[in-house]
Protein backbone atom coordinates (compact mmCIF):
# COMPACT_ATOMS: atom_id res chain seq x y z
CA UNK A 1 0.00 0.00 0.00
CA UNK A 2 1.44 3.41 -0.89
CA UNK A 3 2.51 5.44 2.12
CA UNK A 4 2.10 9.26 2.15
CA UNK A 5 5.14 11.26 1.25
CA UNK A 6 6.33 14.07 3.44
CA UNK A 7 6.34 17.32 1.51
CA UNK A 8 7.70 20.56 2.82
CA UNK A 9 5.13 23.37 2.96
CA UNK A 10 6.09 25.88 0.32
CA UNK A 11 5.64 29.49 1.38
CA UNK A 12 3.80 31.48 -1.29
CA UNK A 13 5.91 34.40 -2.43
CA UNK A 14 3.05 36.41 -3.93
CA UNK A 15 -0.60 36.85 -2.99
CA UNK A 16 -1.62 35.72 -6.48
CA UNK A 17 -0.23 32.25 -5.68
CA UNK A 18 -2.90 31.72 -3.02
CA UNK A 19 -6.06 29.73 -3.77
CA UNK A 20 -9.54 31.27 -3.93
CA UNK A 21 -10.79 30.10 -0.58
CA UNK A 22 -9.36 27.58 1.83
CA UNK A 23 -8.73 24.85 -0.71
CA UNK A 24 -5.53 22.93 -1.44
CA UNK A 25 -4.58 19.53 -2.86
CA UNK A 26 -5.18 16.89 -0.20
CA UNK A 27 -2.75 14.31 1.12
CA UNK A 28 0.02 16.64 2.12
CA UNK A 29 2.02 15.67 5.17
CA UNK A 30 4.24 18.55 6.08
CA UNK A 31 6.10 16.89 8.92
CA UNK A 32 6.59 13.51 10.55
CA UNK A 33 5.80 12.88 14.19
CA UNK A 34 8.63 10.51 15.04
CA UNK A 35 10.26 13.01 17.38
CA UNK A 36 7.45 12.54 19.90
CA UNK A 37 8.69 9.04 20.83
CA UNK A 38 10.59 7.90 23.89
CA UNK A 39 10.18 4.25 22.92
CA UNK A 40 9.99 2.58 19.53
CA UNK A 41 8.35 -0.68 18.47
CA UNK A 42 10.89 -3.30 17.42
CA UNK A 43 9.37 -5.93 15.16
CA UNK A 44 10.65 -9.53 15.04
CA UNK A 45 9.38 -10.46 11.61
CA UNK A 46 9.91 -14.17 12.27
CA UNK A 47 7.30 -14.11 15.04
CA UNK A 48 4.73 -12.16 12.97
CA UNK A 49 1.81 -14.37 11.86
CA UNK A 50 0.25 -11.72 9.61
CA UNK A 51 -2.95 -11.44 11.67
CA UNK A 52 -2.94 -7.63 11.24
CA UNK A 53 -4.25 -7.06 14.75
CA UNK A 54 -1.59 -4.36 15.28
CA UNK A 55 -2.59 -2.81 11.94
CA UNK A 56 -6.18 -2.49 13.15
CA UNK A 57 -5.26 -1.04 16.53
CA UNK A 58 -2.54 1.45 15.58
CA UNK A 59 -4.06 4.92 16.20
CA UNK A 60 -1.66 6.60 13.76
CA UNK A 61 -1.96 4.21 10.82
CA UNK A 62 1.76 3.58 11.13
CA UNK A 63 1.52 -0.16 10.52
CA UNK A 64 1.48 -1.17 6.89
CA UNK A 65 0.86 -4.40 5.08
CA UNK A 66 4.05 -5.80 3.57
CA UNK A 67 3.13 -8.90 1.65
CA UNK A 68 1.62 -11.36 4.11
CA UNK A 69 3.14 -9.68 7.15
CA UNK A 70 3.36 -6.17 8.61
CA UNK A 71 5.87 -3.36 8.57
CA UNK A 72 6.11 -0.28 10.80
CA UNK A 73 6.39 3.19 9.32
CA UNK A 74 8.43 4.87 12.03
CA UNK A 75 7.94 8.36 10.55
CA UNK A 76 4.49 8.62 12.10
CA UNK A 77 4.85 6.29 15.09
CA UNK A 78 4.50 8.21 18.35
CA UNK A 79 5.66 5.24 20.43
CA UNK A 80 2.38 4.61 22.25
CA UNK A 81 3.03 0.85 22.46
CA UNK A 82 -0.52 -0.27 21.67
CA UNK A 83 0.76 -2.59 18.92
CA UNK A 84 3.10 -4.26 21.38
CA UNK A 85 0.28 -4.83 23.89
CA UNK A 86 -2.11 -6.12 21.24
CA UNK A 87 0.30 -8.54 19.53
CA UNK A 88 -0.56 -12.08 20.70
CA UNK A 89 2.73 -13.52 19.47
CA UNK A 90 5.26 -11.22 21.15
CA UNK A 91 6.48 -10.03 17.75
CA UNK A 92 6.59 -6.36 18.79
CA UNK A 93 8.67 -5.24 21.76
CA UNK A 94 9.04 -1.62 22.86
CA UNK A 95 12.67 -0.55 23.12
CA UNK A 96 14.16 2.70 24.45
CA UNK A 97 14.60 5.35 21.82
CA UNK A 98 18.18 6.57 21.64
CA UNK A 99 18.09 10.30 22.15
Amino acid at each position, binding site marked *: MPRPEIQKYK*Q*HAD*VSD*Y*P*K*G*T*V*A*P*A*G*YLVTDSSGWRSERPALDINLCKGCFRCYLFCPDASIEKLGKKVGIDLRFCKGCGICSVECKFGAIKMVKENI
Partner: protein
Amino acid sequence: MSGANNKRFISGNEAVAEGVRLARPHVISAYPITPQTTVVERLADMVADGSLKTEFMYVESEHSALSALIGASAMGARTFTATSSQGLLYMAECLHYASGGRFPIVMMNANRSVALPWNILGDQRDSLSLLDSGWIQAYAADAQEALDFTIQAFAIAEHSDVLTPFMVNLDGFVLTHTYEAVSLPSQEDVDKFLPKFVTANKLDLDSPKSLGFTAGAGDNTEFKYLQHKAMQSAPGVINETELRFNSIFKRERRGLLESYLADDAEYIIITLGSVAGTVKTVVDALRAQGIKAGLVRLRYIRPFPAKEIAQICENAKAIGVLEKDISFGYEGTVYTNVKSALFDAGIIKPSHNFVAGLGGRDIPREDIFKIFNILSTRGDREEKVHFVGLKQK
Protein backbone atom coordinates in the same frame (compact mmCIF):
# COMPACT_ATOMS: atom_id res chain seq x y z
CA MET B 1 -45.34 28.03 -16.64
CA SER B 2 -45.52 29.17 -20.23
CA GLY B 3 -44.79 32.40 -22.05
CA ALA B 4 -41.66 34.49 -21.78
CA ASN B 5 -42.99 36.86 -19.13
CA ASN B 6 -45.82 35.38 -17.16
CA LYS B 7 -47.36 37.97 -14.78
CA ARG B 8 -48.40 36.72 -11.36
CA PHE B 9 -49.89 38.47 -8.32
CA ILE B 10 -47.53 37.36 -5.55
CA SER B 11 -45.84 38.61 -2.38
CA GLY B 12 -42.18 39.54 -2.01
CA ASN B 13 -41.50 36.26 -0.27
CA GLU B 14 -43.25 34.28 -3.01
CA ALA B 15 -41.27 36.20 -5.62
CA VAL B 16 -38.06 35.04 -3.91
CA ALA B 17 -39.32 31.45 -3.80
CA GLU B 18 -40.19 31.59 -7.52
CA GLY B 19 -36.71 32.96 -8.27
CA VAL B 20 -35.13 30.14 -6.28
CA ARG B 21 -37.22 27.51 -8.09
CA LEU B 22 -36.13 28.89 -11.45
CA ALA B 23 -32.46 28.88 -10.38
CA ARG B 24 -32.67 25.12 -9.64
CA PRO B 25 -30.49 24.89 -6.52
CA HIS B 26 -29.23 21.43 -5.61
CA VAL B 27 -29.66 21.98 -1.87
CA ILE B 28 -31.95 24.22 0.18
CA SER B 29 -31.61 24.32 3.93
CA ALA B 30 -33.65 26.67 6.07
CA TYR B 31 -35.30 27.21 9.40
CA PRO B 32 -38.55 29.19 9.48
CA ILE B 33 -38.68 32.61 11.16
CA THR B 34 -41.12 35.50 10.84
CA PRO B 35 -41.30 37.28 8.40
CA GLN B 36 -39.31 34.91 6.20
CA THR B 37 -41.55 31.88 6.83
CA THR B 38 -43.58 31.94 3.63
CA VAL B 39 -40.42 31.65 1.52
CA VAL B 40 -39.66 28.33 3.18
CA GLU B 41 -43.32 27.26 2.99
CA ARG B 42 -43.54 27.97 -0.74
CA LEU B 43 -40.28 26.15 -1.44
CA ALA B 44 -41.53 23.16 0.57
CA ASP B 45 -44.79 23.26 -1.46
CA MET B 46 -42.78 23.23 -4.67
CA VAL B 47 -40.75 20.23 -3.52
CA ALA B 48 -43.97 18.45 -2.50
CA ASP B 49 -45.73 19.09 -5.83
CA GLY B 50 -42.63 18.11 -7.79
CA SER B 51 -42.05 21.49 -9.47
CA LEU B 52 -38.74 21.89 -7.62
CA LYS B 53 -36.20 19.09 -7.61
CA THR B 54 -33.83 19.83 -4.77
CA GLU B 55 -32.48 18.33 -1.57
CA PHE B 56 -34.59 20.21 0.97
CA MET B 57 -33.00 19.92 4.40
CA TYR B 58 -35.12 20.60 7.46
CA VAL B 59 -32.69 21.66 10.16
CA GLU B 60 -32.99 22.49 13.85
CA SER B 61 -31.55 26.01 13.68
CA GLU B 62 -30.24 28.77 11.45
CA HIS B 63 -26.70 27.94 12.52
CA SER B 64 -27.25 24.44 11.15
CA ALA B 65 -29.00 25.75 8.03
CA LEU B 66 -25.97 27.71 6.91
CA SER B 67 -23.49 25.09 8.14
CA ALA B 68 -25.27 22.45 6.05
CA LEU B 69 -25.04 24.68 2.99
CA ILE B 70 -21.35 25.30 3.52
CA GLY B 71 -20.94 21.53 3.38
CA ALA B 72 -23.17 21.25 0.32
CA SER B 73 -21.36 24.10 -1.45
CA ALA B 74 -18.08 22.32 -0.69
CA MET B 75 -19.46 19.47 -2.83
CA GLY B 76 -19.98 21.90 -5.72
CA ALA B 77 -23.73 22.26 -5.13
CA ARG B 78 -25.81 25.37 -5.84
CA THR B 79 -27.29 26.35 -2.48
CA PHE B 80 -29.98 28.57 -0.98
CA THR B 81 -31.22 29.52 2.46
CA ALA B 82 -33.46 32.21 3.92
CA THR B 83 -33.63 33.81 7.33
CA SER B 84 -34.33 36.97 9.30
CA SER B 85 -33.24 38.97 12.34
CA GLN B 86 -32.41 36.68 15.29
CA GLY B 87 -31.92 33.82 12.85
CA LEU B 88 -29.39 35.81 10.84
CA LEU B 89 -27.54 36.70 14.03
CA TYR B 90 -27.62 33.07 15.14
CA MET B 91 -25.81 32.11 11.92
CA ALA B 92 -23.34 35.02 12.25
CA GLU B 93 -20.39 32.71 12.87
CA CYS B 94 -21.23 30.75 9.74
CA LEU B 95 -21.53 33.91 7.63
CA HIS B 96 -17.77 34.38 8.02
CA TYR B 97 -17.13 30.70 7.38
CA ALA B 98 -19.07 30.91 4.11
CA SER B 99 -17.39 34.09 2.86
CA GLY B 100 -13.90 33.10 4.05
CA GLY B 101 -14.26 29.66 2.44
CA ARG B 102 -15.50 31.42 -0.72
CA PHE B 103 -18.70 29.36 -0.84
CA PRO B 104 -21.18 31.26 -3.06
CA ILE B 105 -24.32 30.55 -1.05
CA VAL B 106 -27.38 32.68 -1.81
CA MET B 107 -29.52 33.77 1.12
CA MET B 108 -32.69 35.79 1.40
CA ASN B 109 -32.94 37.87 4.55
CA ALA B 110 -36.22 39.42 5.67
CA ASN B 111 -35.06 42.64 7.34
CA ARG B 112 -36.46 42.60 10.84
CA SER B 113 -35.73 44.35 14.10
CA VAL B 114 -33.38 42.77 16.61
CA ALA B 115 -34.32 42.09 20.26
CA LEU B 116 -34.53 43.50 22.91
CA PRO B 117 -37.24 44.86 23.03
CA TRP B 118 -38.67 41.86 21.21
CA ASN B 119 -40.14 42.82 17.87
CA ILE B 120 -41.02 40.92 14.71
CA LEU B 121 -41.50 43.93 12.43
CA GLY B 122 -39.13 45.38 9.89
CA ASP B 123 -35.98 47.39 10.25
CA GLN B 124 -32.47 46.93 8.87
CA ARG B 125 -30.45 46.52 12.01
CA ASP B 126 -30.03 42.77 11.43
CA SER B 127 -28.19 42.79 8.09
CA LEU B 128 -26.42 46.13 8.52
CA SER B 129 -24.82 44.92 11.75
CA LEU B 130 -23.25 42.15 9.63
CA LEU B 131 -21.91 44.37 6.89
CA ASP B 132 -18.37 43.22 7.64
CA SER B 133 -19.11 39.51 7.33
CA GLY B 134 -17.87 39.41 3.73
CA TRP B 135 -21.23 38.89 2.03
CA ILE B 136 -22.58 40.80 -0.92
CA GLN B 137 -25.64 42.70 0.35
CA ALA B 138 -28.43 43.79 -1.99
CA TYR B 139 -31.64 45.54 -0.89
CA ALA B 140 -34.80 45.11 -2.95
CA ALA B 141 -37.38 47.87 -3.33
CA ASP B 142 -40.26 45.74 -4.60
CA ALA B 143 -41.24 42.13 -5.28
CA GLN B 144 -40.10 42.27 -8.91
CA GLU B 145 -36.65 43.34 -7.86
CA ALA B 146 -36.63 40.66 -5.17
CA LEU B 147 -37.23 38.00 -7.83
CA ASP B 148 -34.68 39.49 -10.22
CA PHE B 149 -32.03 39.84 -7.49
CA THR B 150 -32.59 36.21 -6.46
CA ILE B 151 -31.92 34.85 -9.95
CA GLN B 152 -29.00 37.22 -10.58
CA ALA B 153 -27.53 36.44 -7.15
CA PHE B 154 -26.55 32.91 -8.18
CA ALA B 155 -24.81 34.16 -11.34
CA ILE B 156 -22.92 36.87 -9.46
CA ALA B 157 -21.99 34.87 -6.35
CA GLU B 158 -20.86 31.82 -8.35
CA HIS B 159 -18.79 33.84 -10.86
CA SER B 160 -15.18 32.68 -10.60
CA ASP B 161 -13.93 36.25 -10.06
CA VAL B 162 -16.35 36.74 -7.18
CA LEU B 163 -16.99 33.43 -5.35
CA THR B 164 -18.63 35.35 -2.53
CA PRO B 165 -21.94 34.59 -0.80
CA PHE B 166 -24.91 36.82 -1.61
CA MET B 167 -27.58 38.18 0.73
CA VAL B 168 -30.81 39.46 -0.83
CA ASN B 169 -32.57 41.72 1.68
CA LEU B 170 -36.31 42.43 1.72
CA ASP B 171 -37.96 44.77 4.22
CA GLY B 172 -39.90 42.63 6.66
CA PHE B 173 -43.68 42.63 6.03
CA VAL B 174 -43.65 45.87 4.00
CA LEU B 175 -42.02 43.95 1.18
CA THR B 176 -42.07 40.28 2.21
CA HIS B 177 -45.86 40.19 2.66
CA THR B 178 -47.06 42.79 0.17
CA TYR B 179 -48.63 41.46 -3.03
CA GLU B 180 -47.69 42.88 -6.41
CA ALA B 181 -47.89 41.93 -10.05
CA VAL B 182 -44.58 40.24 -10.78
CA SER B 183 -43.28 39.24 -14.18
CA LEU B 184 -42.08 35.64 -13.96
CA PRO B 185 -39.40 34.49 -16.41
CA SER B 186 -39.73 31.14 -18.13
CA GLN B 187 -37.60 28.21 -16.99
CA GLU B 188 -36.12 27.99 -20.46
CA ASP B 189 -34.88 31.60 -20.34
CA VAL B 190 -33.47 31.24 -16.82
CA ASP B 191 -31.63 28.08 -17.87
CA LYS B 192 -30.17 30.11 -20.73
CA PHE B 193 -29.18 32.95 -18.39
CA LEU B 194 -27.78 31.01 -15.47
CA PRO B 195 -24.57 29.08 -16.14
CA LYS B 196 -23.90 25.81 -14.38
CA PHE B 197 -22.05 26.28 -11.10
CA VAL B 198 -18.47 25.17 -11.66
CA THR B 199 -15.78 25.56 -9.00
CA ALA B 200 -12.40 24.13 -8.12
CA ASN B 201 -13.25 24.89 -4.51
CA LYS B 202 -14.93 21.56 -3.78
CA LEU B 203 -14.36 18.05 -2.57
CA ASP B 204 -13.61 15.78 -5.49
CA LEU B 205 -12.79 12.07 -5.41
CA ASP B 206 -10.74 12.32 -8.59
CA SER B 207 -8.71 15.23 -7.27
CA PRO B 208 -8.64 15.01 -3.47
CA LYS B 209 -8.51 18.36 -1.71
CA SER B 210 -8.21 19.73 1.73
CA LEU B 211 -10.92 22.33 2.45
CA GLY B 212 -11.60 24.81 5.20
CA PHE B 213 -8.14 24.67 6.70
CA THR B 214 -6.19 26.83 9.14
CA ALA B 215 -4.08 29.77 7.98
CA GLY B 216 -1.91 31.26 10.67
CA ALA B 217 -0.30 34.66 10.88
CA GLY B 218 2.00 33.77 7.99
CA ASP B 219 -0.82 33.35 5.45
CA ASN B 220 -3.98 34.89 6.89
CA THR B 221 -3.57 38.38 5.45
CA GLU B 222 -3.35 37.01 1.90
CA PHE B 223 -6.64 35.11 2.21
CA LYS B 224 -8.40 38.20 3.56
CA TYR B 225 -6.85 40.40 0.87
CA LEU B 226 -8.20 38.05 -1.80
CA GLN B 227 -11.68 38.30 -0.26
CA HIS B 228 -11.35 42.08 -0.37
CA LYS B 229 -10.31 41.99 -4.04
CA ALA B 230 -13.12 39.57 -4.90
CA MET B 231 -15.68 41.98 -3.44
CA GLN B 232 -14.05 44.81 -5.37
CA SER B 233 -14.40 42.82 -8.57
CA ALA B 234 -18.12 42.26 -7.89
CA PRO B 235 -19.35 45.60 -9.40
CA GLY B 236 -17.97 44.63 -12.83
CA VAL B 237 -19.56 41.19 -12.63
CA ILE B 238 -22.85 42.70 -11.40
CA ASN B 239 -22.81 45.09 -14.36
CA GLU B 240 -22.26 42.41 -17.01
CA THR B 241 -24.74 40.08 -15.29
CA GLU B 242 -27.43 42.79 -15.27
CA LEU B 243 -26.83 43.66 -18.92
CA ARG B 244 -27.27 40.01 -19.88
CA PHE B 245 -30.26 39.59 -17.56
CA ASN B 246 -31.99 42.72 -18.83
CA SER B 247 -31.58 41.78 -22.46
CA ILE B 248 -33.03 38.29 -21.91
CA PHE B 249 -35.85 39.28 -19.55
CA LYS B 250 -36.61 42.78 -20.86
CA ARG B 251 -35.81 44.61 -17.64
CA GLU B 252 -34.31 48.04 -17.15
CA ARG B 253 -33.02 48.35 -13.61
CA ARG B 254 -29.31 48.08 -13.12
CA GLY B 255 -26.36 49.54 -11.24
CA LEU B 256 -25.28 49.51 -7.63
CA LEU B 257 -27.62 52.41 -7.03
CA GLU B 258 -30.75 53.90 -8.55
CA SER B 259 -30.81 57.64 -9.06
CA TYR B 260 -34.23 59.29 -9.17
CA LEU B 261 -34.07 62.95 -10.25
CA ALA B 262 -30.87 63.20 -8.23
CA ASP B 263 -28.41 64.31 -10.91
CA ASP B 264 -29.45 67.97 -10.75
CA ALA B 265 -30.94 67.83 -7.25
CA GLU B 266 -30.06 70.31 -4.54
CA TYR B 267 -31.41 68.16 -1.73
CA ILE B 268 -30.83 64.44 -1.90
CA ILE B 269 -32.10 61.62 0.27
CA ILE B 270 -29.96 58.50 0.12
CA THR B 271 -31.75 55.40 1.35
CA LEU B 272 -32.21 51.68 0.74
CA GLY B 273 -35.09 49.24 0.50
CA SER B 274 -38.81 49.71 0.05
CA VAL B 275 -39.09 53.17 1.64
CA ALA B 276 -37.59 54.53 -1.59
CA GLY B 277 -41.06 54.24 -3.15
CA THR B 278 -42.49 56.71 -0.62
CA VAL B 279 -39.51 59.04 -1.07
CA LYS B 280 -40.12 59.08 -4.84
CA THR B 281 -43.67 60.36 -4.40
CA VAL B 282 -42.38 63.14 -2.12
CA VAL B 283 -39.64 64.02 -4.61
CA ASP B 284 -42.33 64.32 -7.30
CA ALA B 285 -44.45 66.57 -5.06
CA LEU B 286 -41.51 68.82 -4.21
CA ARG B 287 -40.40 69.02 -7.84
CA ALA B 288 -43.93 70.18 -8.70
CA GLN B 289 -43.37 73.03 -6.24
CA GLY B 290 -40.08 73.88 -7.92
CA ILE B 291 -37.89 72.41 -5.19
CA LYS B 292 -35.03 70.40 -6.60
CA ALA B 293 -35.34 67.24 -4.54
CA GLY B 294 -33.81 63.91 -5.49
CA LEU B 295 -33.46 60.32 -4.36
CA VAL B 296 -30.57 57.89 -4.41
CA ARG B 297 -31.54 54.32 -3.63
CA LEU B 298 -28.66 52.03 -2.77
CA ARG B 299 -29.39 48.68 -4.41
CA TYR B 300 -26.13 47.28 -3.12
CA ILE B 301 -24.32 48.26 0.05
CA ARG B 302 -21.57 45.65 -0.36
CA PRO B 303 -19.99 46.23 -2.78
CA PHE B 304 -20.47 49.90 -1.94
CA PRO B 305 -21.11 52.40 -4.76
CA ALA B 306 -18.75 55.04 -3.35
CA LYS B 307 -17.76 56.65 -6.66
CA GLU B 308 -21.33 56.74 -7.94
CA ILE B 309 -22.57 58.43 -4.75
CA ALA B 310 -19.83 61.05 -4.90
CA GLN B 311 -20.56 61.77 -8.55
CA ILE B 312 -24.28 62.30 -7.96
CA CYS B 313 -23.82 64.36 -4.78
CA GLU B 314 -21.16 66.64 -6.20
CA ASN B 315 -23.52 69.54 -6.93
CA ALA B 316 -26.04 68.99 -4.15
CA LYS B 317 -26.59 71.57 -1.41
CA ALA B 318 -27.36 69.06 1.34
CA ILE B 319 -27.47 65.30 1.67
CA GLY B 320 -29.62 63.18 3.97
CA VAL B 321 -29.21 59.49 4.67
CA LEU B 322 -32.43 57.74 5.67
CA GLU B 323 -31.96 54.30 7.19
CA LYS B 324 -33.63 51.84 9.56
CA ASP B 325 -30.48 51.44 11.59
CA ILE B 326 -28.36 53.06 14.29
CA SER B 327 -24.86 52.29 15.54
CA PHE B 328 -25.53 53.42 19.08
CA GLY B 329 -23.70 56.48 20.28
CA TYR B 330 -22.53 57.41 16.80
CA GLU B 331 -24.81 57.31 13.75
CA GLY B 332 -26.40 55.00 11.21
CA THR B 333 -23.95 52.69 9.44
CA VAL B 334 -25.13 53.66 5.97
CA TYR B 335 -24.51 57.33 6.86
CA THR B 336 -20.95 56.50 7.96
CA ASN B 337 -20.36 54.72 4.65
CA VAL B 338 -21.82 57.56 2.59
CA LYS B 339 -19.75 60.19 4.38
CA SER B 340 -16.63 58.13 3.82
CA ALA B 341 -17.39 58.06 0.08
CA LEU B 342 -17.89 61.82 -0.01
CA PHE B 343 -14.74 62.47 2.02
CA ASP B 344 -12.67 60.35 -0.36
CA ALA B 345 -13.99 62.41 -3.26
CA GLY B 346 -13.19 65.67 -1.44
CA ILE B 347 -16.88 66.57 -1.20
CA ILE B 348 -17.74 68.34 2.02
CA LYS B 349 -21.47 69.18 2.24
CA PRO B 350 -24.03 69.72 4.94
CA SER B 351 -25.37 66.25 5.71
CA HIS B 352 -27.85 64.72 8.10
CA ASN B 353 -28.72 61.22 9.19
CA PHE B 354 -32.35 60.20 9.61
CA VAL B 355 -32.92 57.08 11.70
CA ALA B 356 -36.44 55.88 10.98
CA GLY B 357 -38.67 52.83 10.79
CA LEU B 358 -37.19 51.13 13.85
CA GLY B 359 -39.19 48.12 14.99
CA GLY B 360 -41.50 48.53 12.01
CA ARG B 361 -42.62 52.10 12.68
CA ASP B 362 -44.22 53.47 9.54
CA ILE B 363 -42.34 56.14 7.57
CA PRO B 364 -45.17 58.26 6.16
CA ARG B 365 -44.85 60.92 3.46
CA GLU B 366 -45.15 63.67 6.07
CA ASP B 367 -41.90 62.49 7.66
CA ILE B 368 -40.13 62.55 4.30
CA PHE B 369 -41.36 66.12 3.70
CA LYS B 370 -39.94 67.05 7.13
CA ILE B 371 -36.62 65.43 6.22
CA PHE B 372 -36.35 67.46 3.01
CA ASN B 373 -37.30 70.55 5.04
CA ILE B 374 -34.44 69.92 7.47
CA LEU B 375 -32.05 69.43 4.54
CA SER B 376 -33.08 72.71 2.92
CA THR B 377 -33.19 74.88 6.06
CA ARG B 378 -30.58 73.67 8.51
CA GLY B 379 -26.84 73.96 8.29
CA ASP B 380 -24.31 71.43 9.31
CA ARG B 381 -23.55 72.63 12.80
CA GLU B 382 -26.62 71.38 14.62
CA GLU B 383 -27.54 67.87 15.66
CA LYS B 384 -26.87 65.63 12.66
CA VAL B 385 -28.47 62.36 13.75
CA HIS B 386 -32.27 62.64 13.86
CA PHE B 387 -34.57 59.95 15.26
CA VAL B 388 -37.52 60.53 12.96
CA GLY B 389 -40.87 60.74 14.74
CA LEU B 390 -39.32 60.56 18.21
CA LYS B 391 -42.02 61.29 20.80
CA GLN B 392 -41.16 64.56 22.50
CA LYS B 393 -43.46 66.81 24.52
